[in-house]
Structures are given as structure tokens and as C-alpha cells.
């Protein structure tokens, strides 16, 4: 990507990790790379806490009778699983960890535009997490992560207030991160780095940030109204006082559907990087992949009504929302076809990040196509609120986003830590996670189609075989997730020291030492070439 790579001899400049080892130097850091690592530690904690609640859900569903826990406890388990995974893991996962670490490096900047705000957003996340932890300790919430009224405002006796407050607060962390990234992308690019020379990851993060900035405030006001309704009983969502609970659903999904794209677009950005790196090829249809991210962000704001097909929405509105939901498949399809075309005739290396990326493409495609089933007015009525929906969004969020996140962590681990991870263990983890994931969630498509509703703690006997398969898959998946956690930690001490550019990739982040110095680059890079400027296959053979 650069004309003149500026690789310093290792040890020339002090790297960002060894500048200072004190705790204070981490807690008061304004270095985007360290803030990314603070997020990495926090969201890893959230991931395993959310995973614990998922484990509870799957264990309860091992047998048809509700025997492991009471129905009320089960409600709390799936609610806490959803809240933690959505708001405290998935939404900050790629943007706050990899985005923070990589965005300034990829655009040749010394830091994000507002480093203090960046650190503040982590503290805001931790404050939100403190309220969430209090919620868990004080008995949890049973409303589902969707907080539907009037149950959340009138009837639930659990600690809705502290959970809503925690999500309200963590939303501002998300808004500030998005704001920071938009300004950084606009104002901090290195000389010569035009918009259409940006890595596709930057495009994806930029589109994600637009959604974070424009959708999250609506969630904030919605949760404020729920909290006020709950304390003052003023009737805004209470039908007995003239209010309309469906208004809540509109406002909630106006945020939460775009939030689904907050949870997948960054994954698509990571996969675009991984595919080009390990196929050693220019991205096929670069412009289309870049703009499809923006198209998904825009269309994502116009489809929320497909969550309300059975909520008494007018048939006319439902038809429009159904059509618009189909349209989202177009930019998503553009991406999948372009990735496939990039692979075509590439010199593919099946390294760990590539395995995760290929897993992503397969699982995302299944998740996306089943989304079309749900956008269809007639079919949605059959599978609404069944395990079909659960399987669909887990294919997108876990099969898609978590695979991409782990692929990205592996790909940039040498840059982040300065150490190589053990390649064979990495490949094993990717395969185990892929198999465990499919075993967990594919049976749920069948269960949903056969009519098993979501959010119940017991079910008829004939569904047991599929549920046992799903729980068995979940245990494999859980082990699969522990594996990278273990060997990545191991590699911090015993891994081989990483060279500046272990994958021979073209991005600016690889043109500086691993780990990078505090200011990222010795000299500000000047970009003179298009992105992914890999030599053609002929040159490689020659």
C-alpha cells in the first residue's frame, strides 16, 4: 500500500506495551492501542459471563421437563444471556477492540481524533457493566433483552431499573466510540490515503459508526421512557392510561434492528481483510464491497417494522417493511459474491484467520438466507417467536460476528501482542468452533419449523432428540471458545516473537513494527498505491 515501507529495525523505538508497565499507565492511558486492549479484557469477561447464562439455558433444555431451575429463573437466564451478549459483548466486540486498535494504524494516524474521549468511553462502558453486575447480583431481570412493555413497565418484579440504566449508560460508550471513529476517518487519514484507498475494514467500521451514532440515542430515550413509566406510572406505554405498547416496539426496534448491523458490519470488514490477505489478491469489486457497507447501514434504518408483523401493525406497513427487508439482501449478497470472486484463482493459504473467514462466509450465508424466510409476511407468521428465529440470528451473530471477531483477533494477534499464536492449535479451534456451532444451532432451525416456541423452559417430549443435539453442540462450542483463550494467553509468554508483517499483507498496520511504537509510525506514511496491491498470480509463480 505504501510506496516506501517504513519498517524500523526491531527495538529501534520502544513499543506501546513496554513504554510503561504500571497499572496507572494502563488506567490513564490515551493510547488507542491500550484502550483497545482494555476493551478486549472487559468484553472477554462479558463473553464468558454471557456464556455461563447460555450454558444454563442449554442445560435446562436437555430434558423436556422444567427440572433444573424454576421457570422464573430460566426467564432470568435467557434475559441476562441476551443483555450481556448483545450490549456488553457483540456491540463493542469488533469496533471497540479491533477498531480501536487498528483504525488509526490502518489510516496512518498517530491516534484517534479524541483520545481522552476514547478513554472516557471505556470508563462509561465499565460503569454500565457495574450496573449490569449489580443487576445480576440482585437477582437478574426476566423481561427478555427486548424489555417489551407493558410487562417491563407494569408487571415484572425484577430489577428492570438497574438493567435499563446499565444499558442506557453503555449506549453512550457506543455513541462516543462511533463519533470518535467517524471524525478520525474523516480528518486523520495519512497523505495520499483517499476514501477509495481505505481498507475495507475502515469502510465497515465507518458505516457501523454511523449506525451507532444515529440509532443509539433512540434506545437511550426509549429506556428513559420505560424507566419513567415504571416509577411514575404516567401511561406512555400503558394501554389502560391511553398509551400504546406497540409504540415501544417501534422505538425499541428502530434502534435494535440497526443494532443487528452494528453487530455484523464490522465482521464483514474483518472478513474482507482476511480473504484478501490469505488469497493474496486484490478485493474483487472493491468499490462495491465498500459501498455495500454504507448501503446496509442506510437500509438497516428502514426495516425495523419486520419485528412487528404479528403486533397489530397495518398490513400496508408490513408489506413495505417486508419489501425493504428483502432489499438488505442485495448489498449482503454483493459482499458474499465478491468475497467468493476474490477467492477465485487466489493463492489461498489455509491459515487460522482464513479458516475463520471461510466459516464466516458459510454461516453468514445460511443466517442471511433464513432471514429472507422471516422477512416473508406469510412464513414469518408460522415461525415467529420460534427457535427458527433464535437459530437465524445466532447464525448471523455467533456464526457470523463471533467467527469474524476470532478470525480478526488471530490475524492481528502478532501485531497486538508481538507474538505468534500456535498455528495448528488455531486451526483446530476454528474447526471445533465451526462444527460445534452447527451442531448447536442447526437443530434449532428444525425445532422452530416444527413449532417449538422460544423462551420456554419446558417442551413436549418429541422435541428432545433435537434439543439434546443442540446442547451437545453447545458444550463443544464452549470448549472451542476456551481453546483460543488458553493458547493466546500461552503465546504471550511462549509464542515466537512476531515479525512486522508475518502474513506479507499490504495494509499500513503491517508496515510498522510488531507491536507498534506508541506513536504508531516512525514517520507519517505517504500512500501512493491502491489497497490490496498484491502482485498478480503470474508474478508470484515467476
Amino acid at each position, binding site marked *: 500500500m505504501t510506496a516506501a515501507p517504513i519498517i524500523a529495525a526491531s527495538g529501534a523505538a520502544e513499543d506501546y506495551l513496554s513504554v510503561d508497565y504500571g497499572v496507572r499507565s494502563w488506567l490513564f492511558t490515551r493510547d488507542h492501542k491500550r484502550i483497545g486492549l482494555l476493551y478486549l479484557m472487559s468484553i472477554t469477561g462479558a463473553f464468558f459471563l454471557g456464556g455461563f447464562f447460555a450454558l444454563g439455558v442449554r442445560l435446562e433444555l436437555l430434558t423436556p421437563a422444567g427440572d433444573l431451575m424454576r421457570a422464573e429463573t430460566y426467564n432470568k437466564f435467557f434475559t441476562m444471556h441476551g443483555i450481556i451478549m448483545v450490549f456488553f459483548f457483540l456491540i463493542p466486540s469488533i469496533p471497540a477492540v479491533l477498531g480501536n486498535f487498528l483504525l488509526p494504524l490502518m489510516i496512518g494516524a498517530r491516534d484517534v481524533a479524541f483520545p481522552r474521549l476514547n478513554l472516557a468511553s471505556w470508563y462509561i462502558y465499565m460503569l454500565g457493566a457495574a450496573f449490569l453486575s449489580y443487576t445480576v447480583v440482585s437477582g437478574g431481570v426476566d423481561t427478555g433483552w427486548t424489555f417489551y412493555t407493558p410487562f417491563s413497565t407494569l408487571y415484572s418484579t425484577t430489577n428492570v431499573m438497574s438493567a435499563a440504566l446499565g444499558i442506557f449508560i453503555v449506549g453512550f460508550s457506543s455513541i462516543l466510540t462511533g463519533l470518535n471513529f467517524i471524525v478520525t476517518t474523516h480528518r486523520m487519514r495519512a497523505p495520499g490515503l483517499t476514501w477509495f484507498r481505505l481498507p475495507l475494514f475502515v469502510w465497515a467500521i465507518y458505516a457501523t459508526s454511523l449506525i451507532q451514532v444515529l440509532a443509539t*440515542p433512540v434506545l437511550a430515550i426509549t429506556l428513559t421512557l420505560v424507566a419513567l413509566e415504571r416509577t411514575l406510572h404516567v401511561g406512555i406505554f400503558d394501554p389502560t392510561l391511553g398509551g400504546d405498547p406497540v409504540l415501544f416496539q417501534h*422505538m425499541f426496534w428502530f434502534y435494535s434492528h440497526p443494532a443487528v448491523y452494528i453487530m455484523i458490519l464490522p465482521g464483514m470488514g474483518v472478513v474482507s481483510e482476511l480473504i484478501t490477505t490469505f488469497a493474496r489478491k486484490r478485493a474483487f469489486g472493491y468499490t462495491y464491497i465498500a459501498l455495500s457497507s454504507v448501503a446496509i447501514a442506510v437500509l438497516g434504518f428502514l426495516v425495523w417494522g419486520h419485528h412487528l408483523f404479528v403486533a397489530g401493525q397495518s398490513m400496508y406497513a408490513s408489506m413495505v417493511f417486508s419489501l425493504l427487508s428483502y432489499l438488505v439482501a442485495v448489498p449482503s449478497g454483493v459482499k458474499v459474491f465478491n468475497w467468493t470472486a476474490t477467492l477465485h484463482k487466489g493463492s489461498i493459504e489455509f491459515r487460522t484467520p482464513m479458516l475463520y473467514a471461510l466459516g464466516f462466509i458459510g454461516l453468514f450465508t445460511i443466517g442471511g438466507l433464513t432471514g429472507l424466510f422471516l422477512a416473508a409476511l406469510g412464513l414469518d407468521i408460522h415461525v415467529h417467536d420460534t427457535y427458527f428465529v433464535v437459530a437465524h440470528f445466532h447464525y448471523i451473530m455467533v456464526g457470523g460476528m463471533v467467527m469474524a471477531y476470532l478470525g480478526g483477533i488471530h490475524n492481528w494477534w502478532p501485531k497486538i501482542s508481538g507474538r505468534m499464536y500456535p498455528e495448528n492449535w488455531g486451526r483446530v479451534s476454528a474447526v471445533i468452533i465451526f462444527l460445534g456451532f452447527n451442531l448447536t444451532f442447526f437443530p434449532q432451525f428444525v425445532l422452530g419449523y416444527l413449532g417449538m416456541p422460544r423462551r420456554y423452559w419446558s417442551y413436549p417430549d418429541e422435541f428432545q432428540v433435537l434439543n439434546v443435539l443442540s446442547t451437545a453442540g453447545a458444550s463443544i462450542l464452549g470448549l472451542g471458545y476456551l481453546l483460543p483463550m488458553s493458547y493466546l494467553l500461552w503465546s504471550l509468554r511462549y509464542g515466537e516473537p512476531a515479525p512486522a508483517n508475518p502474513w506479507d499483507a499490504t495494509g499500513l498496520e503491517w508496515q510498522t513494527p510488531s507491536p507498534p511504537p506508541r506513536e504508531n509510525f516512525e514517520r507519517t506514511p505517504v500512500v501512493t498505491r491502491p489497497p490490496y496491491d498484491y502482485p498478480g498470480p503470474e508474478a508470484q509463480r515467476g
Partner: protein
Amino acid sequence: MADHAVAVEHVAHQFDDAEQQKLAAELGMWIFLATEVMFFGGMILAYTAYRYLNPTAFAYGSRQLNVVIGGINTGVLLLSSFTVAVSVHAARHGQRRLLVAALVATIVLGLVFLGFKAVEWRHHYHEGLVPGVRFTYQGPDAAGVALFYWLYFALTGVHAVHLTIGIGVMAVIATLGVRGRFSPAYYNPVEIAGLYWHFVDVVWIFLLPLLYLIGRHAP
């Protein structure tokens, strides 16, 4: 250039020059204001839906508001936007005393607005028009009137919170102005704070007709 040294000392390490820093800060504030539009937008959506469902109740509720106080307050806020514009002008031309005077005038006008608002709220409390706290209205469309007043308090309350924050920000800017932190080469914070103040003003320009004026022409 004499101002150059002043400008350089205010440039944070991540920026190349003062110009880049200024443009970044401005864009950041505009994006923040976009999030604020969405925040108020949620409440205005609720207002739209319920006004559509309860037109007569909303007109009745609106007629009970004191349009004279609302009008005076609008004038007060517009005047404060003028003094903010003066402060930015003064900072750009290095007129420190005018800068501080304009900022103090802005703060005073903001406090006057809040004072009038408090008088209005107190009045509503005595009339029993505060849903959830003291609501005694028993007439026709009581539920619709309660929704109107509930949205009225939510919108004006959140607006007042924003104005209070604005007053705090202006106090900080004024203090920095007294200490001579700004110069024609570096007055970015004055401009950014001014953008926020104008936004809070514009929100009120939308709230006035939505809350005070809709009942005027209804039967």
C-alpha cells in the same frame, strides 16, 4: 506569524496542525448534535403518535399553557444565541473583554429562561397538571390530557437539562476567557460551545409551536 506559537502549543499530539484539530473538533460537535436530534426525535415521535390519537385533548392541554411566558422565553433564548454569536466574533478578533461580557450575558439569559420555566412548572403543579406526581384533572379526555402533559414535562425537562449543561459549559469558557486562554489563533472551544448553545436554542424553537401554539386555532 506571531500567533503561530500560541497555536502550536494548543495542538494535541495526534494532530498535524491547528487546522486539522479545529476541523476535527467541529465535525465531532456536529455529529454529537446529530445524536441529540435523534434523542429528542424519539420523544417527538411519541408526541406525534399521541397527538394524532388524541387531537382534542392535546389542543385542550396546549391552551392551558401560558403562551406569554413561552413567547418571552423564546425571545430570551434568541437573544442568548445573539450574545453567543457576539462571543465567537469577539474571540476571533481577540477582544477579550467583549468575549467575557457576551458569555456572561449568555449565562444570565439562560438563567432567566430557566427561571420563567420554573415559574410555569410551579403553576402546573398547583393546577394539578403533573402526571405521576399531582394530576387532578378529571374532565373529558383525561387520559389524553395526561399524555400531553407527560410529554410536555419530558420535552421541556430534557431541554432544561441541556440548557443547564450549556450554562455550565459557558461558565467554563468564560473562566478560560478571563484567564486569557483564547486568541485569534486559538478560539476553537468558544465556537464548539457556541454550536451546542445554538442547538439547544433550536430545540426550543421546535418545542414552542408543538407545545404552546397547537391549541390556539383548534375549536
